[in-house]
């Protein structure tokens, strides 16, 4: 039927599946994000670090490259070990925080600011599906820049080093995968929860940084004033760092974390406290989302 036909007619065709409906939200979100040149360039730039790390791995296994530039033995300067992979994850995770701060608030706040939630939820579409749809945008992008390049680096190293190295260090791969997912989940939930409450994109983005850096500062102040280590519970990068160390090394710790995500030596809290604090943070975010993501707001 031509678009100029001015009449109303019912729809008798087939309907899509709930899963396909869920994917409508990320599809539209990606179309919007793709329009922003800044975000596209930033996203592409985040792959610079994995590229450099891949070159390092290559060079490590090709002594001839060092010989060519007259730097025999230079391959001993950088070791491909737990610190190498944890640093790679740390750098990428910090960039993920920036990306989540830029794009996270734009997912929910426009819908809430414009009262569009009633229209989403008046359709065969639940609140959970709405949050999952919005979250999937962050999950996909942040995965692409954290555990995916991390596992590629691990596979590349394993390919060059041999099957034995892979078997010995398989814990690195699981740590990269699960460590990144913990970080991604926290970032995504926090970005959506803050934007649901603030409803104003720039403020929500700013709050994201506030939660990470101001809360860490607050924790450090508690530590200094009370002469304790419990202030670290407010420091999300500390909590993540201590969980990562356990994921990468188990109970035989040789490091205290990676860049940006360190648990200073001598100031460690019990590991379960870090897990519990991260779980509480996630629950708070879920509560905030449950309160705000509604078809209509009840004024009591």
């Amino acid at each position, binding site marked *: *039927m031509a*678009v*100029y*036909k*001015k*009449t*109303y*007619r*019912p*729809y*008798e*065709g*087939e*309907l*899509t599946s709930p899963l396909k*409906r869920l994917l*409508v*939200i990320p599809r*539209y979100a990606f179309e919007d994000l793709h329009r922003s040149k800044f975000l596209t360039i930033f996203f592409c730039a985040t792959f610079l670090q994995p590229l450099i790390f891949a070159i390092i791995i290559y060079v490590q296994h090709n002594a001839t490259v060092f010989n060519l530039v007259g730097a025999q033995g230079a391959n001993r300067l950088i070791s491909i070990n737990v610190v190498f992979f944890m640093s790679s994850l740390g750098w990428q995770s910090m960039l993920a925080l920036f990306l989540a701060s830029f794009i996270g608030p734009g997912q929910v706040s*426009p*819908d809430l600011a*414009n*009262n*569009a939630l*009633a*229209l*989403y*939820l*008046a*359709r*065969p*579409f*639940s609140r959970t599906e709405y949050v999952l749809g919005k979250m999937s945008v962050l999950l996909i992008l942040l995965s692409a820049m954290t555990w995916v390049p991390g596992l590629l680096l691990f596979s590349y190293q394993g390919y060059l080093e041999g099957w034995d190295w892979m078997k010995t260090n398989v814990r690195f791969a699981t740590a990269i995968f699960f460590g990144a997912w913990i970080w991604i989940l926290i970032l995504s939930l926090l970005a959506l929860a803050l934007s649901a409450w603030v409803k104003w994109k720039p403020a929500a983005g700013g709050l994201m940084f506030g939660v990470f850096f101001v809360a860490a500062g607050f924790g450090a102040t508690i530590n200094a004033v009370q002469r304790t280590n419990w202030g670290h519970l407010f420091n999300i990068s500390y909590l993540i760092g201590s969980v990562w160390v356990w994921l990468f090394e188990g109970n035989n710790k040789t490091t205290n974390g990676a860049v940006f995500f360190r648990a200073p030596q001598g100031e460690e809290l019990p590991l379960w406290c870090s897990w519990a604090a991260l779980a509480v943070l996630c629950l708070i975010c879920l509560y905030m989302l449950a309160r705000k993501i*509604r*078809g*209509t707001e*009840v004024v*009591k």
Partner: protein
Amino acid sequence: MDSAVIELDGLEVRFGNRAILKKLKASLTGRSIGLLGPNGAGKSTLLNTLLGFHKPSSGTARILGRDIRTHAREVRSLIGYMPENDSFIASMSGVRFVRLMAELAGLPREHALERAHEAFFYVGLGEVRYRALGTYSLGMKQSAKLAQAIAHGPKLLFLDEPTNGLDPPARTRMIQLIQEIRDRGDLHLILSSHLLRDVEECCDQVLILKDGNIAAFCNLEEERRANRRFLEIETRGSNNGDFLDAMEKLGCETAQGAQGRIKLILPDGLEVRRLYEVAAQQNVQIRRLNHKRDSLEDIFLKAMEAPDARS
């Protein structure tokens, strides 16, 4: 008898300790149903509950036979909803927004795009469909809301105060659109409004709410039919007696009052036009003609004045 479009079965909704809807019981069967009531009567809460936004504290409701408690998703797939307040994403173009909403309602991508364009042309916004919704005037926003509500071809359309804030021409256009949709007979309409005129022009059944109770429920179509038969006229002229005789010969029941007032019950098939023709033949002027039975305004006022609304 028609099957119920909406069946309220002891539906109660509470916010905290306060009951907003109080055990409503009704069976609405009309093609277009008006929800009337003063502000705070519970009209929007009723719509929101039927959409699943509020959980009933007791009782339930069925929409086209589906229980809103157990088949919420299925119920929502049958409904098109035009909310009272501005609801859209300001930065999105009109057609893209309607397409998004149609896709979320389950239409495949290509169908959603086609129907979004159609809906925009249908509501008269064809020329501005690529403009950002935030730049639309109030009347255009109302029409865009209607477009998103009908784009996926619902079986039941919820219109919450559709003429809110519209100027007279825009209101007339909106009412015409609603009447057109109603007259096509493809879907049922629920129109919530505090404007009697809107409801009177668009609906054939009316549910009047007051303080969360059903204050009155009437079939406007029957009222209109009764109105058409029962007349009170005021005449001036040479001989009212001859005029009355002539009307009785046409089958009317008549009763003469003071100062040229006459009450008439027209038989089936006799049009009011014949009354004027006979009056002209008898040299009688009809100065005033009233449908004697209650108008919607009378029904509404009576319902509001009643001390206890029925639940």
